[in-house]
């Protein structure tokens, strides 16, 4: 299982951002008691009150804490994608998928509700379910299956000779599949409808029917993601061979350096290292309580 990702979030800035963001937005909204801005029901909010902002905000936070927990777990599983694409491309794809799913779902929802007389699809989901479902296509497409295993089940309380054996074949991705399935069911019919549409959007995005996959990069993200990443380990990160930073950028972009790759992981040793290693702040606080 050497293909497994390293555990933890070291050098997964985008995954970290998504996990922390999902949690914090929900928590803060809950403390501020304004979770309702994530609810986008066509009737009454859109049709009666004309609160169109809800069509833009419905993906940003969850109303239900179960959804939040599921989404955080799924984001963690999706760190494969960040390793595969590199942080910059990953966050660009995320932003692109966010825009497409929001626009398509909001547009389709309004259209369906205007045209059809029945209320079959009254509301949109809360939380970033559509975004996750769009990325789910990428996950299934580009993450290879590493291993599979069988679960053998026999019927109890029957004769040994004609005992039927059930065999379940599960693979290493069954956790993600299960989480996504629960997430879809958790929001009822709306979850399944929105999830399906978003998954189609993911497919279109990948196949190029929806443009932007190759060229769209979030501006400024380069500066936010990379230098911080380089400076927060203790050693000084230097360009080998005198490359200018721009060249480095291009190169990195081209070969899509994976953040989880461990060759840069160990910090360089400081020449003037003291015998006692510098204690990080967390350790210092914990030592307060050590007796």
């Amino acid at each position, binding site marked *: 299982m050497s293909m497994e990702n390293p555990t933890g979030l070291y050098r997964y800035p985008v995954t970290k951002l998504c996990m922390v963001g999902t949690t914090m937005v929900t928590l803060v909204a809950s*403390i501020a008691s304004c979770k309702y801005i994530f609810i986008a029901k066509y009737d009454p909010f859109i049709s009666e009150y004309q609160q169109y902002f809800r069509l833009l905000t419905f993906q940003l936070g969850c109303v239900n804490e179960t959804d939040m927990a599921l989404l955080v777990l799924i984001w963690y599983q999706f760190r494969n994608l960040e390793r595969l694409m590199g942080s910059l491309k990953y966050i660009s794809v995320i932003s692109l998928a966010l825009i497409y799913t929001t626009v398509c779902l909001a547009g389709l929802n309004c259209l369906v509700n205007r045209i059809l007389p029945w209320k079959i699809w009254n509301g949109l989901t809360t939380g970033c379910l559509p975004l996750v479902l769009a990325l789910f296509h990428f996950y299934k497409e580009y993450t290879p299956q590493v291993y599979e295993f069988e679960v053998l089940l026999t019927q109890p309380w029957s004769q040994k000779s004609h005992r039927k054996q059930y065999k379940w074949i599960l693979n290493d991705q069954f956790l993600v599949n299960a989480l996504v399935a629960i997430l879809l069911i958790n929001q009822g019919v709306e979850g399944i409808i929105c999830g399906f549409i978003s998954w189609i959007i993911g497919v279109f995005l990948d196949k190029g029917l929806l443009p932007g996959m190759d060229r769209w990069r979030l501006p400024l993200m380069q500066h936010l993601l990379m230098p911080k990443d380089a400076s927060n380990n203790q050693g000084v990160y230097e360009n080998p061979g005198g490359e200018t930073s721009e060249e480095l950028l291009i190169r990195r972009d081209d070969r899509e350096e994976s953040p989880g790759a461990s060759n840069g992981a160990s910090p360089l040793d400081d020449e003037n290292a003291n015998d006692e290693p510098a204690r990080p702040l967390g350790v210092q*606080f914990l030592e307060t309580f050590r007796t």
Partner: protein
Amino acid sequence: MEIDGNTLLIIIIILFLFFSTPGGDGVSSQYEFNQLQSFKSQLNTEYESFEQMSYNSGFRNITGFKLSFNDVKDDPQRNATYPIPSKDYDRWFQNQDYLILPEDVTTRVKNEVWSPNMNKPEENVFPPNITSSLLGRIQLISNNKHPRIPMPVPRFYESPTEFSDVTPPEGETYFKDWPAHSELHNVTFDTGELTIQLTHVDKVPSQLGSQKKKFFNSQTDRWKFLNLRISLSDKSEHERHSLYTNAIYDVRRGRILAMTESAKFHSLFAFPHYMNLQNDNDNDDEDTFDSLKKAVKEYWDKSNFVKTLTMGDLQSWYDESILKCEYMVFLQLSPWNQYTRDQIKMIDDELNWPLGRPANLSHLPPVTVSKGILYSPDCGVELEFHDAKGERYGLKIRSIRTHLLFGIGLFIAQIYLLLCQMHHTNTPSSVNKISVYCFSMINLVDGSLATIYFFSASILPELYLPLVTSAFACFILASVFETRYLISVYASQLNERNVGISTLLRGGHSTNEDTDTATAVVPDESSISGSLYARFFFMLVSFTLLSMSARWWPRKVRMMFEYSAIIVLNSYWLPQIFRNAIKGTLPRRNRLRNQRMNEAMGVRRQNKMPLLWKFVLGTTFIRTLPVVYVFTYSSNVFRHHRNVRFVVVLCLWLLFQIAVLYSQDILGSRWFLPKLSIPEGYSYHKAMPAQDLLEHGSTAGYTIDCAICMSEVPIRVEEVPETHKVDEQTYMVTPCAHIFHTQCLENWMSYKLQCPVCRSPLPPL
């Protein structure tokens, strides 16, 4: 845990104590049982008489209503008995022959308070939910004009005089028999402050001790049951009256009738008749009477009024009756005619269950009582007020929540600044220059805030989440970050304990104390943290209790306490100024020059100012902002009075402190001390006499092995001229006369202020 006989015994005793407390109705003796029985049977008889009461018949045997106003006026010595000969019980008119109100109060209620032009239910819209607390100013009309209606208290309420008493005494006592409480039975100020807290009573518990509550009111479109807490006080809060009343709110007409309830005034039975004070046609009146009687009956039945009475009720009814006047309160709400009923419903829904409906809550008008009269039949006091206003409770909660969120933001900013400051002073030498008292003051305020937040979270369940988050943020700031920092400051200053200021000015070194300091044991951080935490929590609890109890002090004392506490607690930079003066930093220009020199030599030197300017300014801003808000913004959520002058004084005081700190940064921290008073500090860089050097086993070339890097240190020896080319800055001599390379020892001193060889304390750089 092993359980032996003794432990088991203790557990059994504790369980016994738990289970042997009087449960349910709180009866703990035969006497109390009989008291409660008399109480219940009295109420049952009165309820029966209430059931027979109709729109055309008067009160019969109901406590507090046995005498009418004219009965007393005709014969002031008359006792409240039933039946009174020659009294007409079978008819009812709204005049002082039948009412307990004097004629002019009745007319004013009819014409001014419940004015006829508010009497068209279809014209005016009143909000059905008026939970709020109203503020206003109250005026005394008269306190000696009207005769006082005698209201006796049955003697079975009295507590037993002996242990052996089993049956409570019979009979009644009158006001003249009670111990003197004259000031409570009168209102002596002319104008005063009024607060009214309105709460809805929609559900009642139907069993003793059960938490389950049931709806009882089947006519919520007409009547609402309220609880009113009315408190009156004069401006200086020397005289304070607080009344707890039941009230009925006529939703269609915006009228509220509130009456206190006690052992001498069973007002619940009087609501149907007294709600009817109006100049109107009789049909409507009778309908009102019957409908209201039904509502009272529903309340009585659903709440099992008699069965759920406890000893606690009995005692509080008795206390209320002895200590306070009974009041009847007539209020008229202002209508919300700018809204339709649907809009008001949407507003209510949005306040109960926010979903972002377009209710425009920010423009919601206040709940206003346009006019009100308070009359006390047994004390003859009459008061009135106009325009008491207050925000809807739900709105108030929303605005408090916004303030709390802002406060959390401030806490987070403070945590960030503190982290920067901690990062800035990360060595014992630099931490040594920080004043413990400065951070203790900051810490005390934060800690007590955390406690107050935590307590109020249990008081205000609607705000539980933001309050607990604030308490958590504040607690993290106070007890983790600040205390942690205090511990390291304290640990670095242990050397200086029991050392006089003049010695400290010299840099913590004195020759005659060498023997003492050499043997001093420096305790480790865990023991320091233990003692500091204990001190922190003791200070915290005592300060919090003090400030909480201060809320109930009279206004003048309270204000003095508040102002002095704020001024003292905002002098947090003062100890740091003294500390700077003691430790003595160079002026900024010299420091920069030294730094450049040291950088050239490749030496790290610790002579920066101990406090970051970002931290100083940020902390001052964060801590002053709430005070400024509370004292200058007149409609603040704490209802604090406005005092701009005090805020200006406070800001000037803080600016003065900051200015002194800045001058210390620019001019050197001792600029205000006369040169002569500053003794010479300890210098690590000095030449050695040859004799001392021999004791340390110097080699022939006057060098010594540095115990840290084990390489040779060339020394400048006073007697030997050829060593005089050695720079004194390259080595350091400790007070315990050990010698190291400057770079080696300074590196070490950023971890510990102890001599690496003999462990005696080192004066910080």
